């Protein structure tokens, strides 16, 4: 009887180990969504920030530390965007946690060339950190995540690699479709609130005429808004992209003065489901296409 019980326990333990999923924590839903895609059934992914959170300043809560304490992998954006994640990781007290910098291998835009100081506002010295908004960078992030997952779960390596190949092929075909859709927009010059959209514009050939915040992290002054009204009228610009976590007073003023359409778009996808990352681009590009042109 004792032998049988022992055997049953060992079998249960083996089954539990085989079925146990890798827990992946991520700073943003976009990284978690890609991890869900690559990991498939072998991964449970969660995000600390929500799509409506300001990724520059997420509040460090004890409940986040509890979640990360149970994680196997943590995906960071890096480039000084999610510095808050360091406090969560430290507070998680998790010795087995593998921290992955997803900026690895990305070609960084808007990298400052001279000395950077706070008089320039909230500038990231390593360059613009919103790189997940170029879907081609999503494929690079997916590669980084695949490597990390394979280290933690070697038995799943072939699954992860197969999912990576699928992700890359889907990215290639979707980028073509999105580019074709974007090319149908007559005026591809837009205004944005913050530099969140530099990678999206780079991927789909949009031009940013100006930003509502004159300096990163600083709200617009009346004279800057007056200058923007001039720019919008002269350039016949039809769209301004406004993040949900910045004040929309400036964007609404511009809409009143010029008739420009305010598109309230979050730079991050809505959740951590595997299809969320791609759905987000559908939504952004549909919004830009839906704006009535003069």
């Amino acid at each position: 009887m004792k032998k049988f019980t022992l055997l049953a326990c060992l079998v249960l333990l083996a089954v539990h180990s085989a079925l146990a999923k890798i827990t992946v924590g991520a700073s943003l839903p976009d990284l978690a969504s890609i991890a869900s895609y690559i990991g498939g059934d072998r991964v449970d992914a969660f995000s600390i920030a929500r799509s409506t959170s300001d990724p520059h300043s997420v509040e460090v809560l004890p409940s986040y530390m509890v979640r990360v304490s149970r994680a196997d992998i943590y995906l960071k954006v890096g480039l000084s965007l999610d510095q808050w994640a360091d406090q969560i990781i430290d507070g998680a007290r998790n010795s087995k946690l593998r921290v992955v910098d997803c900026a690895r291998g990305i070609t960084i835009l808007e990298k400052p060339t001279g000395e950077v100081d706070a008089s320039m506002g909230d500038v990231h010295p390593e360059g613009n950190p919103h790189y997940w908004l170029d879907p081609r960078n999503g494929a690079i992030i997916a590669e980084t995540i695949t490597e990390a997952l394979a280290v933690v779960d070697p038995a799943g390596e072939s699954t992860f690699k197969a999912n990576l190949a699928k992700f890359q092929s889907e990215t290639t075909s979707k980028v073509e479709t999105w580019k074709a859709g974007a090319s149908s927009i007559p005026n591809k010059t837009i205004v944005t609130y913050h530099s969140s959209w530099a990678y999206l514009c780079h991927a789909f050939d949009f031009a940013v005429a100006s930003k509502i915040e004159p300096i990163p992290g600083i709200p617009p002054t009346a004279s800057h808004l007056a200058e923007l009204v001039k720019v919008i009228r002269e350039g016949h610009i039809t769209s301004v992209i406004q993040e949900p976590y910045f004040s929309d007073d400036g964007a609404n003023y511009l809409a009143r003065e010029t008739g420009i359409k305010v598109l309230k778009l979050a730079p991050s996808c809505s959740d951590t489901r595997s299809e969320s990352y791609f759905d987000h681009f559908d939504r952004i590009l549909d919004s830009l296409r839906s704006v009535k042109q003069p």
Partner: protein
Amino acid sequence: MKYSLLCSTIMAFLFALATRSIAGVGIPDISVIGQLRTFLNDDPADINRNRGQISFDESELVFDAALNPYARGTFVFAVADGGIEVEEGYLTLNRGLPNGLLVKAGKYRVGFGKLNPAHPHAYPFIERFRVLAAYLPGDEAYNEIGGQLSYRLPLPGDLSSTLSADVLQGNSFHTDTLDMSRDASRPALLGRWSNFFGIGGESSMEVGLSATQGVNNVDFKSKTSVLGVDAKVKLRFSPLKVLVLQGEFLALDHEHATRDSATGNVTKDHLRPVGGYVFADYTTQKRYNVGAKYERFQRAESGKPWDQSVGVFAGLALMEETTLFRVNWDRFMPDGGDAYNTYTLQVVFSMGPHKAHQF
């Protein structure tokens, strides 16, 4: 002279760090925080009443870095006209220990309640509550040399429940000890249980229980104990609108020992005053905040008279916490004394890597 020497030492230390960084050793995060304050009061007991005053309060020089994969080190120097002192200097072993244990050791602001561990420039208002000054040991804060072991309870879901225990040097308790010239240290103890949980959406609540005890008179072994209950509710209405409601209740038990000079007998009696504070702070657009505060507490003296104060405060942050302007009105109403008002304008400015906002 001593001040210049200390400044030179710190500069030399910074230079040495910068030089070593070339060889691949990272420079710690270094921040400097300055606090300029102008104020006016109508306190009848103040010879400067009704005259505007200006002061440059102590500045903070902060060094913070990972020491190795398992530990972080933090130093906070308080720099004032009188010189430089190590306000805090501690290491935290946060990885590698079993079962989510954490060890902290050094000199630090003790984790009693919600406000004591934080530096005043991180409060939404300017002045520390009087009840904390009256009941907790220490001059400007309950700040001690010691060690802490904390354990996060393995609970389901996202509920965070942490138990911590500190063994402290206990010197800040020795208020009744007449002769501190000899070896008079008696350790103090602190225990805390803090719980954090979500209450829907991005709103959350934190409830804590703290208790500390130390020896106030080494000769007679009389003790001071403080028990505290704290609660904080953070209601996030949108990414740009947040309301914080916070309060603490404290109960002091001060055992006072006296020796009868004629008989030599020692008698002990207890003073057990209670008190607390509450405040509400509403932040909008991440840069503007406005709030109100109230405290009521019994003085630690016979008869336990009730003192109270009420105040309102507002702040404007230019860019995150780098430059902060704050105004504060406070009315103190001591039992049996004249009430008076204090009006304060403060500018807090900081340079260096800005940190995420700790809950």
